[in-house]
């Protein structure tokens, strides 16, 4: 192998690595706060990519319809919960108005905005912002519908529920987007040469946005009250509740962040590689392998693991492309062996 090829592969690895790093961080975040292994994270990537593509192509972004539907379901669930609980029932008027605002009016506002934007030639940042606005609120909605009723269940039950949610979103993805793949316009079309190496500006965008996101998350967790509340919930759920942090609120917040990150990942990779309705699962699992390297607890370890996965993928794609996935997913066995021997995570279940 000559140096140019190696440099190309490294560049590819870094670009997809940046996306896996974000995925891994999101997965660690949601696991630490809610003990949920969030397999449907990959579907947010897909939804993000297809929504952006629809906005660029002047088509109706179906995800906006889904958002309205999910909002309506959450509203029904909240109304039922309010009416069943005598305490809440007394203040039902105000509570329901608040829920109607969050779960009915807001999705409809987004829907109308999307309707107004369809067919307009929006600038790129506006397209991205609208995509995030359409897809990311599904995160907390999903938490309310699927996971909150199970909040006290074991990790295992939550994991099985995650698989159920993954199947639903995957099927809906097929209904909304069809079996054809999409590729979106790059943020910037420029390629430039660095010596003999062609660097695509899109890869730089991916790495840059990813790094900014990681930095933003760091600041959020270190310096903001809600970030600290999330960390407290991750360390000790009961303790957090005793000092007044609602675990359901923490869950919704974590899901908002995760959905936001997932959608952003979709926006970032859609210009580099074609995304299909079922691409999310594999992307998510590669993030997972990275997160497992960090044993689902450490952010820097998870990020390092995700980069490692991407490099491995990039180089095995060159040497043994047919066995790319085999190599990446078999990596988990030696990694687990290593983690197991290191004994970082004892046998203490729950």
């Amino acid at each position, binding site marked *: 192998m000559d140096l140019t090829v190696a440099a190309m592969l490294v560049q590819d690895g870094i670009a997809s690595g940046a996306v896996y790093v974000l995925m891994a961080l999101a997965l660690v975040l949601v696991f630490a706060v809610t003990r949920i*292994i969030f397999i449907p994270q990959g579907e947010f990537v897909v939804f993000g990519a297809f929504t952006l593509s629809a906005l660029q192509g002047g088509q109706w972004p179906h995800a906006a319809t889904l958002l309205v539907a999910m909002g309506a379901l959450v509203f029904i669930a909240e109304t039922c919960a309010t009416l069943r609980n005598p305490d809440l029932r007394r203040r039902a008027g105000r509570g329901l108005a608040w829920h109607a605002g969050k779960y009915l009016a807001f999705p409809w506002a987004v829907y109308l905005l999307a309707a107004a934007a369809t067919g307009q030639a929006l600038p790129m940042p506006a397209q991205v912002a609208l995509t995030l606005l359409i897809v990311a609120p599904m995160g907390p909605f999903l938490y309310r519908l*699927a996971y909150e*009723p*199970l909040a006290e*269940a*074991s*990790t*295992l*039950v939550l*994991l*099985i*529920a995650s*698989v*159920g*949610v*993954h*199947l*639903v*979103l*995957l*099927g*809906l993805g*097929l*209904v909304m987007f069809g*079996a054809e793949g999409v590729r979106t316009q790059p943020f910037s079309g420029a390629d430039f040469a660095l010596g003999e190496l062609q660097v695509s500006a899109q890869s730089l965008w991916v790495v840059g946005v990813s790094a900014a996101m990681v930095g933003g998350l760091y600041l959020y967790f270190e310096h903001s009250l809600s970030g600290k509340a999330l960390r407290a919930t991750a360390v000790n759920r009961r303790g957090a509740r005793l000092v007044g942090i609602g675990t359901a609120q923490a869950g919704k917040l974590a899901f908002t962040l995760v959905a936001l990150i997932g959608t952003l990942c979709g926006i970032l990779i859609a210009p580099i590689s074609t995304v299909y309705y079922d691409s999310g699962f*594999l992307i998510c*699992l590669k993030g*997972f*392998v990275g997160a*497992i390297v960090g*044993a*689902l607890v450490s952010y820097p370890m998870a990020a390092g693991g995700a980069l490692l996965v991407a490099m491995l993928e990039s180089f095995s794609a060159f040497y043994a492309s*047919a*066995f*790319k*996935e*085999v190599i*990446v*997913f*078999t990596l*988990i*066995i030696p990694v*687990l*062996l290593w*983690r*197991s021997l290191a*004994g970082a*995570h*004892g*046998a*203490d*279940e*729950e």
Partner: protein
Amino acid sequence: MNKRLIVPAACAVALAMLPLLPTPQFWITLLNYVGLYSLVAMGLVLLTGVGGLTSFGQAAFVGIGAYSTAYLSATLGLSPWLGLAAGLAITALCAALIGLVTMRMSGHFLPLATIAWGLALYYLFGNLEFLGKYDGITGLPPIDLLGWDLASGRDIYYLIWASVLLAALALHNLLNSRPGRAIRALKGGGTMAEAMGVDTAWTKLTIFVLAALLASWSGWLQAHLQRAVNPTPFSVNYGIEYLFMAVIGGIGHIWGAVLGAGVLTVLKDALQGAIPRLTGVSGHFEIIIFGLLLVLLLQYARDGLWGALRKLLPAPEPARAPAGAPALPKRKKPRHGELILDVREVRKEFGGLVAVNDVSFQVRAGEIVGLIGPNGAGKSTTFNLVTGVLPATRGEVEYRGEPLRGLPSREIARRGIGRTFQHVQLLPAMTVLENVAIGAHLRGDFRPRGGLLASILRLNRAEEAKLLSEAARQLERVGLGEHMYKEAGSLALGQQRILEIARALCCDPALLLLDEPAAGLRYREKQALAELLDKLRAEGMSVLLVEHDMDFVMNLTDRLVVMEFGTRIAEGRPAEVRADPAVIEAYLGGVE
């Protein structure tokens, strides 16, 4: 004829008659697949429903079974039976490897590892030249069963359903045995099982391998039913579907697996036909409905269909303690007054915090020693150091002259120390008798880890008789004899604590360690407990108990050890301790 047997017998006859009657071929095919899926789902019932672990990679094990026999029988022209043997061997090896690397980690690593492994294997099948890449292998010969050529669906039907019934019987036998009770104890948290002498990591590994073997067996049958293999049915999606079947049917019940496999197979077939007819679009939209069903089941009916159906059937007969079984051999007990537990300057630090500060005390045979102190004094930590739940930072604990340092709690149990728990740890759905029999885990006829095959083949009758009658004997001893066949969860808290003592007595201990036995008990229950401990002492038992309740320990114990802030502040007879100024200071605060 026994009334209980009527329904199963009728089902068996109906199953056997179906292929002989003019049943449409479609139904036979459907039933064949239900049988194949049931085998895999049954493994998941054992793994997930009973053992509390799970796997999304069962389809990969089905694939190993199918590809092994396909390669050996179609490509190399060998007998399908050799293919079966090879498939099972390779499966066991792979499952053991995956199990080994994940069993020591917390529970969610196994399912994640199995997803990754399932994906890897799917792509491997699809890319290997000698396995025919994504086209797979065709032209498999039919299975030849002692001259009976199982070429048609109607013929292999019998082999498939015989396998299902045998597997169900095997699992039923296994779960109602000594190793089976160890498997069921896994769900109650590993600490209890380990304290009863169960090697939990080994037990988890065993059930993972067993579940994988069932899947591999199903793969073998599947390959010879279809007479061809390709990678698609072995992808992770199918692995998810298998788990789904087990959840629908009722993840804790063997027959739930069959029910779940049946319901899902029929439902899938119906939906695949109905949705395109209704909407005019094709695609596998049934996954939306499956996913929704899965989440709703977990939210509203975690016990599945069988859980609901079971209430309509007569309750199964609980395991009975047979009369006249030979008694288990007993270990040699220490003489009265002999030193049995010697705790010398043990220390436990958590980071900078010294939880137990060089504490020493002794227990002699035939006495009751109380370890008391205010909240946070380090009593429970000391207790955990003695039972091997926590490793000591420094110091030595000797039991009958043998150091216990570094031994896991199951080894400590083997040496003759029985224990109970501060928060009662029993399996509420099991009978009182079976719960107590877990305590006798180390006293079976087979090695503690062994006896699996004997249990499956019901060759363990002598062992079962001895263990269950020992459990019954200990229940009589503690006065719970009349509650033997009730569900443990239905007892009052006081009785549950006594049950734990009976369970501890089942390991034939010379020393009992009781962690706050009187906590949460009513006055009468405390009296009954004190009487029981008094009686055990009279029989020569030594007891070390951690306790809060002063009245309880003052009247019962021979000696008291008082701790405060991790340090021993007093030791002596109850009357002396009560007069000790340091103890008064610790309990009531100093006199200003």
